[in-house]
């Protein structure tokens, strides 16, 4: 059972959303329930029990003392990193991208009377699909922090880590990104275990992503990118690979 928390300071809209949600959950027999529906951020945070990976439906334009929609989302992300954030907004096409990027908001519900019901239905269906997918494939992630945002990168996508030209900076390479964060290769290596291999002082590569080994030139092809391979690491790597072959 997944708990849903609802927070909107517009009582009328909140009631409508709640009714539509409950009806949809009942009809489709989703494994969800609304445990908290409130107009204040403080109340929601107090009501938050021990259970995690909940669904939070929050108003973008929430104003409650020091809290607004973004800060409440930030706080919930901190307390429940695996939770799902859904935002309620009055402007359909002006969806707030900042929420999406910085809080990894899952979806939006558009508040206007005409679109409300359809967007809640669409949102819940998408949510159900994702939950089904996650239940079958539990994903291991590596978490990096840039500024105040946390990024979770599935271990399967990571090609290699590389020390950046600037001290204390590390670059994480995936097939479609290159992320810069503060850290040290030694710490990362210790935390990730034997799935990753230190091929060089400046490189930590995913063993299963190695495509080609070229010890003669001290190079390593990892997922189409080139990494450096030190001599000692080359020997070690051959030992590692031999039993497989």
């Amino acid at each position: 059972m997944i708990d849903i928390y609802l927070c909107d300071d517009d009582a009328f809209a909140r009631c409508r959303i709640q009714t539509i949600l409950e009806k949809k959950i009942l009809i489709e027999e989703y494994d969800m329930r609304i445990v908290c529906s409130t107009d204040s951020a403080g109340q929601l945070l107090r009501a938050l029990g021990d259970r995690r990976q909940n669904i939070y439906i929050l108003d973008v334009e929430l104003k409650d003392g020091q809290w607004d929609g973004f800060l409440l989302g930030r706080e919930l992300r901190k307390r429940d990193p695996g939770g799902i954030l859904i935002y309620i907004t009055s402007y359909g096409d002006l969806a707030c991208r900042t929420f999406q990027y910085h809080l990894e908001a899952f979806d939006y519900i558009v508040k206007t009377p005409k679109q409300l019901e359809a967007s809640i239905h669409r949102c819940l269906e998408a949510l159900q699909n994702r939950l089904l997918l996650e239940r079958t494939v539990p994903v291991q992630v590596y978490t990096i922090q840039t500024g105040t945002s946390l990024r979770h990168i599935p271990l399967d996508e990571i090609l290699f880590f590389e020390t950046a030209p600037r001290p204390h900076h590390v670059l994480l390479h995936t097939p479609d990104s290159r992320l810069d964060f503060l850290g040290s290769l030694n710490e990362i290596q210790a935390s990730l275990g034997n799935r990753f291999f230190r091929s060089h002082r400046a490189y930590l590569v995913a063993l299963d992503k190695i495509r080609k080994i070229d010890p003669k030139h001290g190079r390593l092809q990892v997922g189409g990118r080139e990494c450096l391979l030190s001599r000692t690491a080359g020997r070690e790597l051959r030992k590692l690979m031999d039993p497989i072959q």
Partner: protein
Amino acid sequence: MSYADLPFWKQFLFTCEDHLLSHLILLLWLGALFDTPSKRQLLKKLPLLFLLAPVTAAVNWGAAGIIQNTPLMLLLYLLITLFFTLWSMWAWHRPFWHCLAAVCMAGMMESSLSVIFIHLLYACFPIVSPERIPPFMTMCLLWLTLPLSHFALSMFPRRLWQKERFCTYLEQAYDPRRTALLLAALATAFVALNHMQYGVQPAYLADYLLVVAVMAILMTALVFHLTLRDMDLKRLNLQKDMLLRQQLYEQTQEELQDELRAFRHDCRNLLTGLMEKQEDGTLSRSFQELETGFEKRLGEKIRAASQIGNLRIPQIRGLLLHKIAQMAEQHIPCHLEVLYPVDHADMDTWDLIRCLGILTDNATEAALETAQPWVEILLLQEGPVLTLRISNPWTGNEDPEYFWRAGWSTRGSGRGMGLFSYQKILKRYPGASSSTRWGGGIFTQELTITVPGGRS
């Protein structure tokens, strides 16, 4: 024993050594004017340069039979300048005119200072003179002091162009070609001045050296002054433009206020008319009309204005207004989001503006290559942390891994240079980290600026 009495091969070797030494000195000066993107890469390209010494020595040797004095000297000078320019284009990935300017500048330093050093050497060690050849080893040791003293002096321009090198300033120059050609003319004059040492009577040698020294100092100061002036001019122009945008922005603000006043007027009219309309069922329709009208007329404007209003650093507001206006001219829809007021960043404002400018220019350029261009700019300030996020659609034709290599470009040299400068600016800020994503046909550059040292 004099130079002419030496065996043929020894004479050639001496000429070679002479050329090698002057090339080494030229390289030292070039290194001081350029910045090194990667020392290893540079070392790999170095051997080719040593091939030049025997080549120029051979040309010197071969051509000496046909032409002498000034034409020979000019021929060699031309050859060396051309070769060095091409080589530095290859080594530093810079456009031709930048390289030519830097090589000429380095050449001037080399030829003027060498004259002074050599004559100082003659004065201090009487055994070394153009007429007599001392034992080979002593000679080598003495000549070795030349590059060392040049190296010591080349620290001086490093200090002059402290923050960034001479070549970065060249990028800012209005007309790099004109600058390069003027520098080339000056360098030629210096080479001629260098050549004059052989005709100066000993009694006037001190005066001659004084003139050379003063000219060298004057020339360096002048070039430094000119690059600074060019930069200031450019900055001033940008500021002027930003001021203009600011005025335009204020104008839209006023328009918005007028519209709001009109809306308030409509609202009051409507409320007074409410009572009468209540009976005939047109009430809800009137409300709807009012709302949709308001949304259509003002919704997006108010939203955009409040986002721009959240940019509390005037220069950044100016720059973004400028860039958004540019995008509008090119029919690229731009979505700007500034959730919280942006009032400070742990970065020099001008550096931040350059970063922002480079990122938006790249985004615009890449977006233009796609069928449906758009650009999205998000700024988020959370306490001391400022995050910039700029996305655009892209064709996916280039491998993003090449973007960070120096000099990468798809057309011309502007784009790769931009990202290279961007990386160079960030090098000065340990708290800044820049990430890139390019999945799903969308290219995103993200820059996070935190207080250095704080891993918060």
